[in-house]
């Protein structure tokens, strides 16, 4: 295989692994821009993946699976919202709690319902997302350079993949061109300004948290209904945290979020690709090291390469009227 082909395959799998990251990081963008930190992206995604897998297995409908994913994820978001907005609790603690609850309960419920060691049953074709092929993709593959780009990079993904990348400009438009976005960004910087302008800080933050829930729902559904055929315990494998890192790396901006997710996705794809392949000069690299590579690079990138990432000023602080 020549270099060009290797590159196309690598980029194709970059896109595939980036999708949940893009959804989750955009989800985090909505809440964190509104001043609610959310370390529970991981848990919401996992809960959504389980709900999607379970509902699709029972009903044999991919759409009911997707709806179940979104419902569960929004529900978990509302729990986080209730703890951190209404009860003014610690947002990190609440997020961590959600991660733990979901990690445990998905396995228990999965075992109780399906008796497959915490998995959901493998989904038949109709119960999961199918690949969307662009017209003439197969024919175009023979055209040099442009052909494989069209056939393998642009065509041949799941509906949710296209939705994920469409969500990037849509999120930008909502945040920067809509009244809701202006208010949402304001409440993350100075909730007092929003309150004195006659807008409810609490309702605004709840809406941001619900947006986060919906997007995490998509991320989870993608994992169990598109990328694989069913739920496997712990299948998010830290993607929620990577998404959080990408969000910081992107300095809370939609376009940068996409680029950061693609970068992390690329590292992941590279790690998979290089497993068992001897590298020039170093020779055979242990699989574990390759698997750790994206995380090692995450630490390095976050530690040194982004300059100062200034989070929303009111982030993590519950709003209390001054007395």
């Amino acid at each position, binding site marked *: 295989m020549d270099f060009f082909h290797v590159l196309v395959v690598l980029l194709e799998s970059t896109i595939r692994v980036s999708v949940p990251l893009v959804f989750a990081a955009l989800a985090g963008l909505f809440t964190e821009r509104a001043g609610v930190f959310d370390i529970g992206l991981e848990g919401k995604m996992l809960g959504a993946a389980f709900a999607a897998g379970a509902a699709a297995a029972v009903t044999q409908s991919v759409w009911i699976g997707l709806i179940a994913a979104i419902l569960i994820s929004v529900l978990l978001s509302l729990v986080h919202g209730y703890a951190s907005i209404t009860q003014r609790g610690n947002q990190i603690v609440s997020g961590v709690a959600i991660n733990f609850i979901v990690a445990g309960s998905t396995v228990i419920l999965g075992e109780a319902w399906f008796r497959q060691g915490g998995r959901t049953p493998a989904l038949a074709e109709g119960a999961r997302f199918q690949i969307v092929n662009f017209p003439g993709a197969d024919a175009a593959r023979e055209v040099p350079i442009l052909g494989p780009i069209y056939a393998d990079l642009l065509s041949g993904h799941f509906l949710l993949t296209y939705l994920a990348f469409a969500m990037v400009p849509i999120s930008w438009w909502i945040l920067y061109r809509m009244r809701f976005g202006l208010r949402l960004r304001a409440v993350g910087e*100075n909730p007092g300004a929003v309150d*004195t302008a*006659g807008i409810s800080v609490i309702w605004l933050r709840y809406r941001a948290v619900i947006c986060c829930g919906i997007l995490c729902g998509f991320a989870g559904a993608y994992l169990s209904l598109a990328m694989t055929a069913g739920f496997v315990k712990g299948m998010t494998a830290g993607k929620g945290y990577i998404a959080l890192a990408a969000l910081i790396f992107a300095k809370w901006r939609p376009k940068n979020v996409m680029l950061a997710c693609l970068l992390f996705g690329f590292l992941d794809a590279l790690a998979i690709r290089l497993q068992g392949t001897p590298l020039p000069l170093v020779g055979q690299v242990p699989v574990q090291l390759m698997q750790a590579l994206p995380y090692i690079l995450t630490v390095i990138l976050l530690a040194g390469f982004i300059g100062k990432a200034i989070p929303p000023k009111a982030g993590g602080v519950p709003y209390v*009227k001054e*007395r």
Partner: protein
Amino acid sequence: MDNIAIELRGIDKSFGPVHANKNINLKVRKGTIHGIIGENGAGKSTLMSILYGFYQADSGEIIVDGRPITIRDPNAAISAGIGMVHQHFMLVENFTVLENVMLGAEDSQILNKGIAKARQELKRLEKEYALEVNPDALIEELPVGLQQRVEILKALYRKADILILDEPTGVLTPAEADHLFRILGQLKAQGKTIILITHKLREIMAITDEVSVMRRGEMVATRTTGETSVEELAELMVGRRVLLRVQKGEGTPGDVKLSVQGLTVKDSRGVTMVDDVTFDVRAGEIVGIAGVAGNGQSELLEAIAGIRKATTGTVLLNGESVDVTGHRDPAALRARGLAHVPEDRHHVGLVLKFEESENAILGYHNDPRYLNGVFLNIDAIRKDAEEKIAKYDIRPPNARLKTANFSGGNQQKIVLAREMERGPDVLIIGQPTRGVDVGAIEFIHKRIIEMRDQGKAVLLVSVELDEIRALSDRILVMFAGRVVGERSPDATEGELGLLMAGVEGRKEAAE
């Protein structure tokens, strides 16, 4: 009764055991500037927050334009034509002026149309009230005077007829404050009603038509400004006669006790906060540093006190050099006779959750007087604290009370007692009367002058120009990190004001 813009009848509000507003009655006439004056904690801000819908009164009536209304939230206040300029600006710092003005009044779901309309309306308001400001500037890049203007524009954009300003001049230079007063005069001429909350008597006399005085949650008097005096208002505020300006004899400066030479301080971002500052403070003199907040006074004070590392420069304490650029050791400085009353008593000067007696020895807790071997000698500490409480008239006189439960003035006295009673050679004091009521100010000023008369060298930093002028033997003015001039306390306010704004100083430095 047509000419009453707003009337409050029997407003009452409690927060738990604190009775913040007691049966308040107030009438504000249309098209006037009405001052509300009172000490910190008198209930002014609570009353205005009720008017703006931040809190609901437990009982009482609000009548706007002859109609009784309920103000359940700021929205209701806005639609009743009430606008508020808060003491701490309610602005989103990384938004533009335009975005801040339209926030909450955007008109439609999608911003584009609203932006065009807001831009037009802003231009009209700018012209009508002479309130120029670039609509596309980011708030964080504007000086505070302009930020405040944005707050006023926000209220006018929402068609406010009644404008409440809460302590508007605290962050302004004298020139900026004068400008604000001109703006307020203009607004009044256009028929707006203005309520001005302040604790500065001078402002009340300068600009209001009528003034109401609050004391301990009660509205104690309303006067026509032209028929009252500063002395009468001060007495009404405090409830007894007060000396507004303490008596002070000639100083007798002795040897140089504190010498600062070429001190430069950079902050963590590498921005120069204190720029090559040189001065001496002699025994038996008070050197005051005037300046608008944020011009390097805080950093200067902290560098001398050994809390902040200086970049270059030397400091001599009692003629011996202090390592200001290397290892910081405030405890060693204290042992060498330097006492420091920090600007921010809540974060630096006190631990609010400690009891009074613990704060009274904070920083001196290794003194053998307070120790029993490795243990604290609680009896000695309490006895010591009680002596200080008596001497400084700290109320309530309870050494075991949690410090957070003392009023601002009494907390400040706790810090002053701790630092002054050690008999230091050099005393450096930041903002001695910030958030302190008029009665306690008099006491604190007297103590500072006593320290001078005992032959101590006193370095005083304050953003209250009146305070600097009343206490200092020499005044240094800081602007943008530099000392831009030295004046005697007889210098006029206008002269000092120009220096503080950096206008005169540049010329002087150039010459």
